[in-house]
């Protein structure tokens, strides 16, 4: 689960600090770390890296030697069926060869290219044969479907047993939660600690963030006791419940609300409230119905290709339904029903291992394509243009179902009225329909091309089809929304679109190997070049290329061919070298200046602040930041006049409608005597009339001239002291600025963070 931290706005004051630093022109080349020191650090890094570099640099050559041998032995390359994957692999290996001309890459390339040639030949050979035995194809379809059924059932059984395993973990979670809540723990921080410990197991991001925030708030004393207890017992618990929901959906599969409530042993109302926000956050989604209850599942980054393919195959079969004779119709109906149920079951499964499904699904698609083609060719068999036929085959299969709906509904629109009493003009209807047909035809063409030629961009497609590129783009977006296409990357700034494909294990291995070969080859040559003459400014690139090695290494340790990890010993032996090299590099990088903010503290120490500030105000249009400070408020001297709030240039100080009445009784007689007469009389009268000392503040609904308490938002305060100067309170006034400076200090903090 990727824990993406949402981008936060910079706090206003921090923003202002940055502005301030920029406005002061302080971004000068740093000279705080002398050059000699830098050179020293670089030299020592070079020394430390040299014993490691040999192992690292030699790693790609020796590894790929073993790997290619293993590949040859397994014959995996021969199993590749996907042409686009193949051509991508070829170009990757070619790139690898330019960076690292070694024998093993060459032989891999030869292998790949021979398979590629065979494909081309096969295409040519296969092209003319058109006649298809429909009955046979249909029965093979039916067989394949049964095969799929078993595999999916296997998956479901596995999911069930996984769920069973997760069950005990879940029970532990819920009972622990119950225990924490039942204990009469008065210390809210302790409760929060316990919850946090528990919640970590769910690994639900929002919970972790919320609890950490609340904890920080409590620790820094920003949150009152009441508030923190409310936050912990409402917000944090709610997030924890969400975490548990996520846990269930992750480990035990899709569930209805009542099922989740039973599992968590809480009223279903709690689950219901919890999931509303989760739906909004896009954590979970509704994937189906069980009886009448919605079934929820967690949202997958993108649904597995196989699920999409099954959905598409279903659509294609449905389209065939009207063109077959009665004998076959029942077979088609049955296949259709089963495919639809597969789609639903796969959706409920969410994520699953696609590899076992790959072979039957691909065969099924071939069979269905063949059947479709057969159906069409049986109508009129003489085909002139090969590609045109293919195009129309895809088209027909794809478009008929939607066209059918449109054709049925369209005439109604012309003859009758819609709910608004409006009527569609017959001419207009014709226009709409012809536009619609054109679009559907174009979309079909694009789809067929992509399926045949592999992932393509809008630019490629426009060239191939002569459809204007903007139209192509619109079609692509539309088809992506309909889940007919997925985006698979980009090339030359264009997004690559592909039909959902199910890759076989062999294909995945070859794909991984070839892309890593290209990456490692270029990283190796870069590393060699950098290490030959290590300079301070290369430190970033050095870290980057070492990271490539590290990541590639991690992926390769998971790569199995024929049930065994390739060159396991080699991988183990080089692991430590790569890791230490990265650590050393980062350590040195932290010590030398080129990666740090370029401002010197010494420069700023001598800045004549007031003179800079006028300039600054002119330039920025708002008051400059002088530093941090705390504004202390002496209640006994405050007249509640709001002068401070009115004069504050930054709205940092406010008179809150809240009477801190307990403090009325703490004021000294001397302090009251200092006050203006009527104000003093007010306090004395209140004290005289009191029969008990108030213990709680009085919150007021709205502003009340003369009453209230002062609050300062230190994130907004620019320490300009205007409020202090204007306060009319006795003696020096009720406010005092305790300046905890200062600009140089702040700059230091920025430059270190």
């Amino acid at each position: 689960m990727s824990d993406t931290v949402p981008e936060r706005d910079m706090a206003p004051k921090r923003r202002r600090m940055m502005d301030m630093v920029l406005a002061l022109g302080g971004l000068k080349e740093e000279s705080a770390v002398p050059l000699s020191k830098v050179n020293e650090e670089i030299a020592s890094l070079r020394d430390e890296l040299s014993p490691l570099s040999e192992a690292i640099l030699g790693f790609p050559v020796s590894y790929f030697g073993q790997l290619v041998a293993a590949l040859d032995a397994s014959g995996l390359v021969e199993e590749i069926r996907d042409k686009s994957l193949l051509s991508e692999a070829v170009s990757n290996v070619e790139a690898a060869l330019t960076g690292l001309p070694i024998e093993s890459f060459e032989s891999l390339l030869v292998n790949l290219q021979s398979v590629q040639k065979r494909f081309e030949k096969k295409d040519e050979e296969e092209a003319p044969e058109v006649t298809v035995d429909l009955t046979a194809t249909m029965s093979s379809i039916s067989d394949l479907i049964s095969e799929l059924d078993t595999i999916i059932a296997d998956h479901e059984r596995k999911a069930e047993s996984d769920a069973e395993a997760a069950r005990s973990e879940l029970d532990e979670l819920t009972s622990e939660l119950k225990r924490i809540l039942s204990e009469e723990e008065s210390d809210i921080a302790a409760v929060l600690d316990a919850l946090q410990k528990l919640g970590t197991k769910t690994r639900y991001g929002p919970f972790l963030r919320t609890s950490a925030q609340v904890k920080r708030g409590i620790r820094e004393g920003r949150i009152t006791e009441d508030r923190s207890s409310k936050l912990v017992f409402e917000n944090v618990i709610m997030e924890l419940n969400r975490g548990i929901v996520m846990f269930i959906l992750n480990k035990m599969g899709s569930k209805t609300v009542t099922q989740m409530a039973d599992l968590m042993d809480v009223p279903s109302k709690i689950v219901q409230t919890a999931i509303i926000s989760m739906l909004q956050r896009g954590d979970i989604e509704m994937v189906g119905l069980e009886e009448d209850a919605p079934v929820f599942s967690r949202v997958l980054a993108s649904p597995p290709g196989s699920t999409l393919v099954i959905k598409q195959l279903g659509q294609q079969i449905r389209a065939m339904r009207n063109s077959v004779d009665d004998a076959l119709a029942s077979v088609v109906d049955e296949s259709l029903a089963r495919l639809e149920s597969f789609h639903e079951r796969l959706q409920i499964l969410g994520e699953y291992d696609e590899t076992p499904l790959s072979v039957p699904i691909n065969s099924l698609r071939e069979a269905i394509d063949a059947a479709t083609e057969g159906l069409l060719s049986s109508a009129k068999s003489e085909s002139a243009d090969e590609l045109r036929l293919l195009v129309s085959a895809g088209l027909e299969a794809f478009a008929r179902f939607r066209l059918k709906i449109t054709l049925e509904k369209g005439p109604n629109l012309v003859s009758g009225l819609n709910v608004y009493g409006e009527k569609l003009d017959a001419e207009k209807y014709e226009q709409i329909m012809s536009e619609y047909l054109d679009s559907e035809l174009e979309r079909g063409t694009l789809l067929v091309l992509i399926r045949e030629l592999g992932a393509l961009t809008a630019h490629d497609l426009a060239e191939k089809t002569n459809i204007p590129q903007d139209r192509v783009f619109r079609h692509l977006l539309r088809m992506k929304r309909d889940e007919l296409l997925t985006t698979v990357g980009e090339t030359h700034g264009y997004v690559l679109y592909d039909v959902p494909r199910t890759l076989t294990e062999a294909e995945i291995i070859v794909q991984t190997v070839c892309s890593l070969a290209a990456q490692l080859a270029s990283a190796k040559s870069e590393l060699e070049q950098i290490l030959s003459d290590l300079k301070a400014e290369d430190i970033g690139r050095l870290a980057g290329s070492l990271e490539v090695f590290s990541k590639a290494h991690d992926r390769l340790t998971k790569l199995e061919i024929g049930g065994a990890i390739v060159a396991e010993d080699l991988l183990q032996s080089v692991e430590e070298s790569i890791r230490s090299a990265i650590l050393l590099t980062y350590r040195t990088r932290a010590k030398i200046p080129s990666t740090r903010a370029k401002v010197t503290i010494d420069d700023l120490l001598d800045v004549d602040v007031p003179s800079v500030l006028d300039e600054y105000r002119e330039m920025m249009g708002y008051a400059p930041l002088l530093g941090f400070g705390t504004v202390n408020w002496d209640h006994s001297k405050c007249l509640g006049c709001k002068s401070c709030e009115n004069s504050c240039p930054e709205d940092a100080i406010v008179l809150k409608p809240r009477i801190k009445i307990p403090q009325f009784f703490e004021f000294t007689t001397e302090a009251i005597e200092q006050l203006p007469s009527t104000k003093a009389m007010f306090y004395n009268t209140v004290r005289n009339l009191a029969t008990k000392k108030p213990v709680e503040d009085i919150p007021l609904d709205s502003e009340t001239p003369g009453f209230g308490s002062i609050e300062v938002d230190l994130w907004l305060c620019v320490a300009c002291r205007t409020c202090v100067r204007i306060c009319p309170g006795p003696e020096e006034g009720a406010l005092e600025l305790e300046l905890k400076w200062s600009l140089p200090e702040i700059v230091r903090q920025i430059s270190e963070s």
Partner: protein
Amino acid sequence: MSEKSDVILCTCGKQLQLDYEILTDRIGKIELAKTVTILDTVCQDDDLEQIAKMIEKNEGRLVIAACTNQKIQPRIDQFLYSKGLDPTRIQYVNIREHSAWVHDDLTEASEKSVAMTRGALARSSTSNTIPTESKDVAGHVTVIGGGIAGIESAISLSGLGYNVTLIEIADELGGHLAKLPMVAPTGKSGTEVLAARLAALKSDSITILTRTKVKYVEGELGRFVVHLVTDAAEEDELHTSAVVLATGFKEFKPTMIDEYQYGKNPDVLTQLELSEMLTEDSLKRPSDGGEVKSVIMVQCVGSRSEDYKRDCSKLCCTFAIDNSLEILKRVPDAQIRIVYMDIRVPFENELIYAESREKGVDYIRGRISMVWSQGNETRVKLYDSLLDQYFELSSDLLVLSCAVLPPDGITELSETLGYAIEDDGHIKELYGKLRRNETRRRGVLAVGAVTRPQFAYEAVTDAQAAALVIHNELQGGRIEKIARGAVLVADDCVGCSLCAQQCPRGVPLMVEETDLENQDDEQKLVFKATIDTLNCHACGVCQSLCPSGATQLNFLTNEQLWAEIDAVLEGAGSDYPITLCFYCEECSVSTIDIVGTRKMKYPASTRLIPVPCSGRVSIVDILKAFESGASAVMLAACETDRCHIAGTGNEIAQVQVDVAQEILNAIGWRGERVGMYRMFSAEPERFTEAINEMVKRAKDFGPTPVHLGTAGKWMEVKE
């Protein structure tokens, strides 16, 4: 400083059910009473002579216990002034409407009368004489906005003898009116209506500044400084005594309402754009200059819509009909359709509606659903809600009657001019019934469409009224009147600016005392308030909020009110719980007088103290009443949003009461012992219900926990 006063008790022609013997006896024994005289009719000449004699004898310290001062005070004042005597120290007690007429029990009524007279004596003992003061101000008024309202204001003010500067942002005077081809129901065009007025503007006393904008305004009534910016970005200052805002209105431009295609199709116009076209006599299709044979007008574009302007814009129906008739004059066979929700033509304008129907203007009740271009035709699809049918029509022009919005810039100006703005963005008038055209800020008047959509003749009436209001204030440049209001002692002022922040009319100004600054390291900013008593409305809000007692009403100082509270409540205790009622001398005094004249009954365990506005009562006054033994305290005030002193005096009072309740609750009392009640003068039941409720609380809650003499108890009480 406890000066004694004479007391006059009036028997109202021997009609009042009070025991005058007891009253004379009891009042005579009050320390502050010098003499007690019983008169039968203080409102008649014989007794007035008697009053005059007593005033002369005792430096004007006199307490008159009679009927409501609303009736007798004007008469007594007039009589005494005619004799050259000063009536400003006289204090009144209402023993008729507040006592004799509303209580059955003679003893209780007499007791109440004695207590309230005791209070008035206390108030009298430290009373001030209030001098008549005068000041000279420039006889100059600035009128902002050169439309019909501004022009009429300038002419009227000039006629009253003032120098006027008329400021207009555009090139020409005349505003929207100049663009109207016909002004119903006069039958004249806008230019004709304006012609005579524009001629009248050519007077020596009127300066016209076109292409000039007002940037901001400083100062107060009698000495405003208007900061101007000319077209050429030159800045200028203008010293003036009052400001008239006549910036008119702005027509809504519906570019964002897609269905009308305004701004996209050149043949779609707003009603005022059509007016302009007709005034210039260039009626043709803007798209191709073709002739106009058919016109569709759409009413309520933006008006009566939750999205744009909620209210009816009032003018557009009449404008549309005016324009239809004008089109028919020029193109007699033109086909005109008006698509409307409701036709609202006020007053005589109904006549032109009838005329238009006779002349064949087609009124279609419904809305337009879409507008589109087909070739060079503008096609309109509309729904007729009476026929429940859709129609598609072509039209040469589509005219949108757009909402009337407040003009640009009034929010910016309000920052320095300090007037209030309504929710709909127009300037808020001081009090819709009695103080039209005045704004929250003294000396700033608002006339014409800037306050609400107005027809030309309404704007003219407004302008004339405003001129008279200004004349009343400026009195031709020499202001002379009794300086009854707030007086500020600058030495006591701490510069907190609460008075300036909260004064309902923006009278106190804060002035920076640069001489007093920079004397120490603290670099304190020193401000002092200044109050021109002649500008003051005498509500007492500043006094209620002033932490130092620096600003006080000269006819009701803190000392006076606190002494009165003390005296009225003398001997109050738990065996006979007293409810003290402060009432404002605006709505509440009338309400209570009506209660009296209708002889409605309420308990006599009540004591009434008049204040000029409920905003005068501060939390200290309320707490002092409890300290002096009151069992309940109530404030009688004007209705919400109906405060006669600019709408905020009673809100300040509400705050005092709310806070007092909270504080009482917090210190171990029942907060409900204090209550605030609003009333319209014509609803006497609201007062009797309120005071019955408070009397009931006084009784139900039992003895108050602490009062004078028992204070300091909390020290021993543990939580």
